[in-house]
């Protein structure tokens, strides 16, 4: 803190000397009472179609434009899935049929009533559209060919026929994800072009029943939402929500300190620390589902040695990073299921221990070696990579860092060409299977399998027992048993896996004192605005 003063004093002195009367705007502005203004990095949005959107910021928008059959309560995320457009559901005896009953009197933004037909069509559409998030629904055996029969409606009931008796929590968690959003069928079909199910139009427009309507989306600039006055849970307190794209943390902080925005969502740890002394703003910590992990490619002759995998776990300065450049925004977490998820484990057995690593490597006869890491050009990842680099150097290992853009890294990663990968994984939906199926499941380790699992990308042939355990966990109806199954999988995983979870994300949203009930969506969901108020 005291560091800041010399610079500011210097600036002030020189500036006052230059020309004080030039002032053209008040030093401290305030945002309008009914408007929530947020600074956020939103340049990743490529579509606002719930059947296509799969980016963090896009999902933030979709979640507020649409309702789903079942959903989370923004004020009580821990309570789990609650009824939403479906006021209730039933599971058949054999566990393969789920029937959801629609709520009456809900209307879309267009004024059309929300019907079971719309809900069924929305799911069918997502499957047929077959964009990125479609796999979330396809897990239940839906395909473009069979989805018209498997998802149907009858009066005010939507009927889902699954291919396996999946755990009810698994199915509902998936329905609560953005791809399960209920879309206004009539409106969208009116804008369809060819066979696109209205995708082109819906990418930049909204046809939902959610608490907000889309007022404007200017890519890389801003998203503006307007409150939907007839929202079935009551109109939101905020008449307008404006999300402004601001890339730099320092710029977000300046905007916040000047009172030009209400919430800043991408402050770095140092900027968060920098504003803690400011009485006008507060910071909320929220545990998110994202995991920062290190993947060791099993194609690499050095990295595939068990001793190497073991040693690497001790070469990560968990506490040191957590206390320095990751401070407050990442917590040590050495399991693939995030805290807050069903079955999440909080056992963190590894510590930073150069001696132990050296011993493990020495026992295996490894005294030197060079590996490459490909890192996305994000500050935190680079810092993690450099810290690892320094630690590895102490045991005779050389880590060569190549920083690349997100697209390039992803390209190489998908081609299984990244020896050491350092990056994040964000869960796709609120069920533990989302992470289990990617970290600990790899049915085909062949190069041409073209899978998307992290295990596959790191060329890790997951042991058959673990593959089966992961699949079995989706079918366990008893929640307690299911939790135990995941705990067991994670225990085994920690022993052998070359994909090493390191940290879990804590989102620090900084906001004006008068902003209440803010939530970024916790570890299971996306941001929700309808409950936010300003005093």
């Amino acid at each position, binding site marked *: 803190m005291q560091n800041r003063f010399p610079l500011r004093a210097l600036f002030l002195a020189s500036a006052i000397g230059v020309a004080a009367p030039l002032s053209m705007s008040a030093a401290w502005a305030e945002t309008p009472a009914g408007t929530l203004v947020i600074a956020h990095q939103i340049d990743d949005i490529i579509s606002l179609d719930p059947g296509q959107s799969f980016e963090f910021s896009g999902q933030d928008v979709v979640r507020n434009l649409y309702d789903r059959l079942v959903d989370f309560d923004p004020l009580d995320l821990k309570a789990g899935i609650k009824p939403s457009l479906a006021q209730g559901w039933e599971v058949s005896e054999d566990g393969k049929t789920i029937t959801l009953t629609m709520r009456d009197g809900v209307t879309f933004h267009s004024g059309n009533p929300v019907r079971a037909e719309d809900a069924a069509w929305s799911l069918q559409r997502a499957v047929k559209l077959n964009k990125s998030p479609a796999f979330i629904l396809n897990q239940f055996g839906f395909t473009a060919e069979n989805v018209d029969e498997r998802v149907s409606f009858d009066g005010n009931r939507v009927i889902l026929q699954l291919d396996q008796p999946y755990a009810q929590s698994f199915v509902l968690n998936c329905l609560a994800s953005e791809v399960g959003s209920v879309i206004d069928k009539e409106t969208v079909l009116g804008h369809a072009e060819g066979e696109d199910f209205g995708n082109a139009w819906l990418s930049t427009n909204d046809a939902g029943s959610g608490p907000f309507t889309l007022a404007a989306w200017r890519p890389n600039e801003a998203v503006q939402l307007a409150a939907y006055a007839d929202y079935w849970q009551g109109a939101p307190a905020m008449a307008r929500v404006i999300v402004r794209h601001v890339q730099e943390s320092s710029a977000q902080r300046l905007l916040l300190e000047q009172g030009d925005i209400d919430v800043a969502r991408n402050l770095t740890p140092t*900027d968060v620390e920098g504003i803690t002394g400011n009485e006008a703003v507060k910071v909320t910590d929220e545990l998110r589902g994202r995991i920062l992990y290190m993947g060791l490619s099993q194609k690499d002759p050095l990295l595939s040695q068990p001793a190497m995998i073991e040693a690497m776990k001790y070469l990560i300065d968990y506490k040191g990073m957590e206390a320095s450049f990751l401070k407050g925004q990442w917590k040590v977490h050495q399991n693939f299921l995030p805290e807050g998820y069903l079955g999440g484990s909080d056992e963190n057995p590894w510590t930073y221990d150069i001696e132990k690593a050296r011993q493990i490597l020495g026992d295996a006869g490894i005294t030197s070696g060079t590996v490459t890491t490909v890192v996305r050009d994000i500050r935190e990842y680079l810092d993690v990579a450099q810290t690892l680099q320094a630690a590895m150097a102490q045991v005779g290992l050389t880590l060569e860092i190549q920083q690349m853009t997100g697209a390039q890294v992803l390209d190489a990663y998908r081609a299984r060409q990244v020896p050491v990968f350092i990056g994040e994984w964000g869960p796709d939906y609120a069920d533990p299977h989302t992470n289990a199926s990617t970290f600990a499941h790899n049915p085909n380790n062949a190069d041409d399998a073209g899978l998307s699992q992290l295990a596959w990308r790191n060329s890790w042939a997951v042991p058959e027992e673990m593959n089966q355990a992961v699949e079995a966990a989706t079918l366990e109806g008893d929640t307690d048993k299911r939790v135990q199954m995941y705990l067991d999988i994670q225990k085994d995983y920690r022993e052998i896996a070359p994909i090493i979870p390191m940290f879990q994300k804590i989102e620090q949203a900084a906001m004006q004192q008068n902003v209440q009930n803010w939530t970024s969506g916790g570890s299971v969901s996306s941001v929700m605005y309808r409950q936010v108020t300003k005093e």
Partner: protein
Amino acid sequence: MTEMTTRAWLLSDAPQTRRQARLGALYQGWLTFRANRLAMVGLAILVLLVLVAAFAPWIAPQNPFAQDLAQRLQPPSASHWLGTDALGRDILSRLIHGSRVTLFIVGTVALIAPVIGLFVGTVAGFAGGWVDQVLMRITDIFLAFPKLILALAFVAALGPGIGNAVLALAVTSWPPYARLARAETLTIRRADYIAAARLQGAGPLRLLIGHVWPLCVSSLIVRAALDMAGIILSAAGLGFLGLGAQPPMPEWGAMISDGRSYILDFWWVAAMPGLAIFVVSLAFNLLGDGLRDVLDPKEGPR
């Protein structure tokens, strides 16, 4: 020969030999240059930079790669004259080692770009006709291209790294040299002594290499000297955008990029490398300006 007579010999307005004339001209140039105090400051800074780069391991107080997370973001103090960065590395030591990187970038780009430009420009100007048309059209295309974006595209295509950044900068900065070299060639080509050399049976290649190139070089050198600062800034810009030098290499541009997330509270992390870049590119600019005064006296302050 005493100092005074050497000087007189150099300054003689009636030189007796070609060597005396040439050395005399050089000495005159040096005197003009020396009289430009700003240019001398620039030269001094650059000499210092070269010395620092040459003796970096001996001068640097600490290992530029040694991390100490407990000592991160320390303000300038007795133990860390310029403070420490986000990983607790000594900024001064990194700056000192970074001078090597900067010199490497500047040196290489300033070597490659003018050479490509010289080759393309003189060939175009000398050959004329469709060769000229084609080469100049290509030059125009590269000129019309948004420069930084072209560099970005190259780095993206070749993969990040200091070598590729240098290559990308070189590839994007040759067209002005080509046009300059072509303009010079067109004037030289019409000169009588070229006609004379041609009459003596000199082939086009010989004319190009023996007569045209040496005459183009001086203006290209001035241009390159003036460009050096631009090259440093472009390289820093690439670093700022996350392409360019790879960590943990202490490249100055990348260091600003590292430090910019801490600029509000820990200003020195970004300010020190920013200052270093500023000082060095200012030095290059002062030097280039002084050089231009010497070689093109009508531009100077008189």
